[in-house]
């Protein structure tokens, strides 16, 4: 069985290699090859899963050592895989959702002349992501970690001819690099502390190291997680990443890659458990991001950016849960999985809407689409209900557990966290209802002619089609709707399935450990409060957008709204704090380099030149002055000789 693990990574990697190096020869069949290999990987994953189910809980972990990778004295890095329950969960999520999105992309990217390349990048992503979750040591994880970053970079910037896409891609990579640096430093710390950075030895001996060291490692890991999972303060790239094709947003920036941070924290649970200070910081980051993303999501008119805010917020939930320690790890992962289903479904739905609306993304120009896109409406609606935590759907179960765990943290902290998560749930309900209403209900605003400027990020294609007048909404082709339907099933049932008999928690327990949290109030009260806050959010949104006509051009809005539209000024802050000073520094250094450092060198040369120019004037051509020099020289020579003797 172990030998199959390699295939998990191998299939998509092969696909990427063939598609990217194959050239025009594979243009015609390339996308199906991509789908096939993603599917093959899923099948392998499923086989391994079934095999794993057949074993005892303690014997489920598989390990495969391929070869020694970088051996330098005590630094021993191996290429080795570890497939335990946690990895398995991710493998199924990644390959499953990944395959669906591959299928979806066949239709979505049909008219793109670079479709082959797109599938190559998607396969590359799958390979890297699988490597990330299968690695048995932090260095190999790092490879996957940056590999998914690369795939994300390539896919965000897939439409490179758009400067905004290229800039967004670069931004994503660089912000992620900050996180990566954190991961690198964490690995250095592990190496100097334990002499190893493989999961097993480090995690099983974590408690031996001092708390200071562990806190440092934990914080560095958190930094890495912040970068990859778009948590405050490294959140700024995710919104811009929506420049990528929608399937990418669904797969990478909603379902899988962005949750890698949660994986990292959960995987490193042993370290965080022994470093309470680091845990506190994790919780704070999660809580802040939760609210941050939610607030941003409320203000965006771009459907994908609204969903991106939502993603950020939901990952905030997961990070928060992971920061709670053993009482939260399992729920973090559970929410991660359910979120993977419903958020991917939502994004695919959004993509379907855009597909039918000439790539229009401004929700204020949608409205009343439910008639035109019934399948999309239904699947999107189920995803919507799941995310707001409508009782019975998967989001309800997973989110409720996190809120309970937050209360169970205990003390003031517990109350604050509980309040924050509840508030988040309310806001989630609000903005998702807003999206739903703006898109599928109300009047058909896309029929209105608007003299005002185009929506901020209309894609070029829209202009081309736009010449024929307004859009003609229509349902998407089968290849796109089927994945949406499948994901909708996941959104509806996954949570319940996991909840039944706490099966998911028990499944993960051998890896993450589990403690039952005890909230200060009974679980039923918490659940009730959750439902109530959710309903409040929905109601508020209905009052604002359901009852009244929605203006096509966004009103100016309050200060908070305007700030939220600008992502709560994240870019302005980054610009003022980092980019501008950086630019000045760079410009200054360029000046210093040419004028001071090089100037010193050139100045030395020039000063010799000047000295030379002055000295050579002594050579004035007159014999008599030459004779004077000789006479003087003789005198000096004599005097010096005598003086030497005198001294």
């Amino acid at each position, binding site marked *: 069985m172990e030998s199959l693990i390699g295939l998990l990574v191998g299939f998509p990697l092969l696909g990427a290699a063939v598609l990217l190096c194959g050239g025009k020869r594979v243009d015609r069949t390339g996308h199906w090859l991509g789908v096939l290999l993603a599917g093959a990987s899923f099948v392998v994953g499923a086989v391994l899963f079934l095999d794993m189910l057949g074993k005892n809980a303690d014997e489920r972990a598989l390990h495969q050592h391929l070869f020694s990778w970088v051996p330098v004295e005590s630094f021993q890095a191996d290429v080795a895989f570890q497939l335990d329950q946690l990895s398995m969960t991710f493998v199924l999520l990644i390959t499953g959702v990944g395959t669906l999105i591959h299928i979806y992309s066949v239709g979505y990217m049909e008219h793109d002349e670079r479709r082959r390349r797109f599938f190559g990048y998607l396969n590359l992503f799958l390979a890297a992501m699988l490597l990330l979750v299968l690695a048995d040591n932090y260095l190999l994880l790092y490879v996957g970690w940056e590999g998914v970053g690369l795939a994300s970079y390539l896919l965000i910037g897939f439409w490179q001819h758009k400067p905004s896409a290229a800039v967004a891609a670069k931004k994503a990579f660089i912000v992620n690099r900050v996180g990566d640096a954190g991961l690198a430093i964490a690995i250095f710390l592990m190496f100097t502390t334990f002499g190893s950075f493989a999961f097993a030895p480090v995690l099983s001996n974590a408690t031996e190291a001092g708390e200071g060291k562990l806190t440092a490692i934990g914080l560095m890991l958190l930094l890495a997680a912040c970068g990859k999972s778009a948590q405050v303060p490294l959140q700024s790239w995710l919104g811009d990443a929506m420049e990528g094709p929608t399937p990418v947003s669904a797969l990478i920036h909603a379902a899988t890659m962005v949750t890698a941070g949660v994986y990292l924290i959960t995987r490193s649970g042993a370290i965080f458990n022994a470093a309470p200070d680091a845990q506190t910081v994790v919780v704070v980051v999660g809580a802040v991001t939760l609210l941050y993303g939610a607030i941003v999501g409320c203000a965006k008119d771009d459907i994908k950016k609204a969903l991106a805010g939502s993603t950020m917020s939901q990952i905030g939930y997961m990070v928060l849960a992971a920061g709670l320690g053993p009482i939260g790890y399992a729920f973090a992962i559970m929410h991660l999985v359910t979120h993977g289903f419903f958020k991917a479904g939502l994004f695919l739905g959004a993509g379907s809407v855009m597909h039918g609306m000439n790539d229009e993304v401004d929700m204020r120009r949608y409205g009343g689409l439910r008639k035109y896109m019934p399948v999309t409406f239904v699947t999107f609606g189920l995803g919507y209900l799941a995310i707001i935590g409508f009782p019975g759907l998967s989001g309800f179960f997973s989110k409720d557990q996190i809120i309970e765990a937050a209360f169970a943290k205990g003390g003031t902290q517990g109350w604050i966290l509980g309040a924050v998560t509840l508030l988040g749930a309310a806001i989630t309900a609000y903005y998702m209802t807003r999206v739903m209403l703006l898109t599928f209900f109300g009047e058909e605003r896309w029929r209105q002619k608007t003299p005002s400027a185009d929506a901020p990020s209309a894609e070029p294609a829209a202009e081309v089609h736009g010449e024929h007048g307004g859009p003609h909404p229509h349902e998407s082709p089968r290849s796109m709707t089927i994945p949406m339907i499948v994901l909708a099933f996941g959104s509806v049932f996954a949570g319940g399935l996991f909840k039944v008999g706490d099966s998911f928690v028990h499944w993960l327990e051998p890896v993450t450990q589990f403690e039952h949290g005890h909230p200060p109030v009974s679980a039923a009260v918490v659940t009730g409060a959750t439902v109530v806050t959710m309903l409040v959010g929905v109601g508020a949104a209905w009052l604002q957008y359901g009852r009244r006509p929605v203006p096509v051009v966004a009103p100016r809005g309050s200060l908070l709204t305007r700030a939220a539209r600008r992502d709560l000024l994240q870019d302005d802050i980054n610009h003022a704090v980092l980019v501008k000073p950086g630019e000045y520094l760079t410009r200054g250094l360029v000046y210093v380099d040419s004028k001071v450092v090089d100037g010193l060198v050139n100045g030395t040369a020039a000063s010799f030149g000047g*000295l030379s120019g002055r000295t050579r004037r002594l*050579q004035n051509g007159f014999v008599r002055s*030459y004779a004077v020099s000789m006479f003087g020289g003789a005198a000096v020579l004599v005097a010096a000789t005598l003086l030497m003797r005198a001294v």
Partner: protein
Amino acid sequence: MSAVATAGTVPSLWTLAAEPLEAPKIEYGQLSPVIIVLGVAVLGILLEAFLPRRVRYGAQLVVTALGLVSAFAAVLGLAVTGHATTKRAVVGMGALAVDGPTLFLQGTILLVGLVSVFVFAERRLEPKSQTAHVDSFAAQPAAVPGGEGEREANAAGWTTTEVYPLLLFAVGGMLLFPAANDLLTLFIALEVFSLPLYLLCALARRRRLLSQESAVKYFLLGAFSSAFLLFGAALIYGYAGTFAYSGIARVIGNADRQTTAVLAETAGSDALLLIGGALVVMGLLFKVGAVPFHMWTPDVYQGAPTPVTGFMAAATKVAAFGALLRLLYVALEGLRWDWRPVMWGVAIVTMIAGAVIAITQTDVKRLLAYSSIAHAGFLLAGVIATEGRGVSSVLFYLGAYSFVTLGAFAVITLVRDAGGEATHLSKWAGLGRRSPLLATAFSVFLLAFAGIPATSGFIGKFAVFAAAAEGGATPLVVVGVIASAIAAFFYIRVMVLMFFSEPKADGPTVAVPSVWTTSAIAIGVVVTLVLGVFPQYFLDLASQAGVFVR
């Protein structure tokens, strides 16, 4: 006189006759190189007097070359028979020393002279006059520049074939110079090689005013410096009572205190010795072109006919350093602690000044003049080092340097425009594109000057600096290295001009030389590279030759 004492009578012709006069013993064998060269020089004068004008060139060339070759053969013979090592001796009644340094330097000088003859003999460069090919020397030196006489002489295709005997006389003097073992011979040898050089400087065919000016300057300053040298010699004589190096060394070493009361009295005053020594050394420093006695160098190098400049730059330096070494190590060894610090100062100033002033030069010949000053500084660093390694390093350096110099000046003779040689640097722009071979050859010489590995210059510099460092003169080495770095700048500048600048439309042409200059340049390149890559044999030679007879 013992005869007087025994006979007790007034000496008369008879008594002198009765006592057979002991003829001075002259070791003709050991002196043969000098004798051959001077003899051939005299022969050359005779040829000049009796041969018709049109055959003089050929005859002179053959005779001169033969003379130099046979003198070199004589040197070789002496060296092979052990006169450089086991049989080193003081000959000619103490006037000359035939030992390692002498033979090594004599051999070098003779080879330099021979190669110089090749360059002298070049007749392809100047436009052909009506009747004959002409060389770089004035048709009629006595004629007023631009006057009727010059025009006629030019038209007649005359040349100054006297340059060959003059060259030989100079070579003869130079052979004596490093061998001189007393101050008298030193002075005479100095004059013997200087006077012909003064004349040679004045003999350029083109730019005669400059040529004459250079002769005047060289002559006046040369005579001025030899007056100092002579006065210094007189003072040393006053101190020691003898001109012989060995005698001086003995007096300095207090060995002769008891000989005469007078001597004891004068020898008690070291001032005479110190002043005299300083003045003699100054006279030699003038010849090697050390700062501040260097000022003649650029002007004379620039004004003199380029073949002469090449000869002078190479051979004078060899001869003068030889003389300086012998003086310092044989005669003034006892004053080592007095002259060393002073020489330190001179060496440092010379290295730095030569390198720095050269940076802004715009004339190739002046540039090389300053470069030669800087090299004099490097050589002085070797002089200051101990005997043995120091001396042999200087010997090697001189051998290496002289061929580089000869080659470089030979190249300069080839770059010409309507006005003769185009020595202004701006005219060398793009030479590498027009004539890559020539530019490459010149680059080899420049790189050797700069001391880049794989050239003789590097090995020489290394030898000298290593000797200096071993002798405890580390600061000198550091200064030398810095000066080398500065000096590299202007060598590179010339290379940049040649290879990377666009050729000027009215730029000079590279004359196609005859086999003479070609072979001179080729010899220069070959020697430079061979000494750079396989130096061991020559280093062995130099180190065997590094011991003076006392």
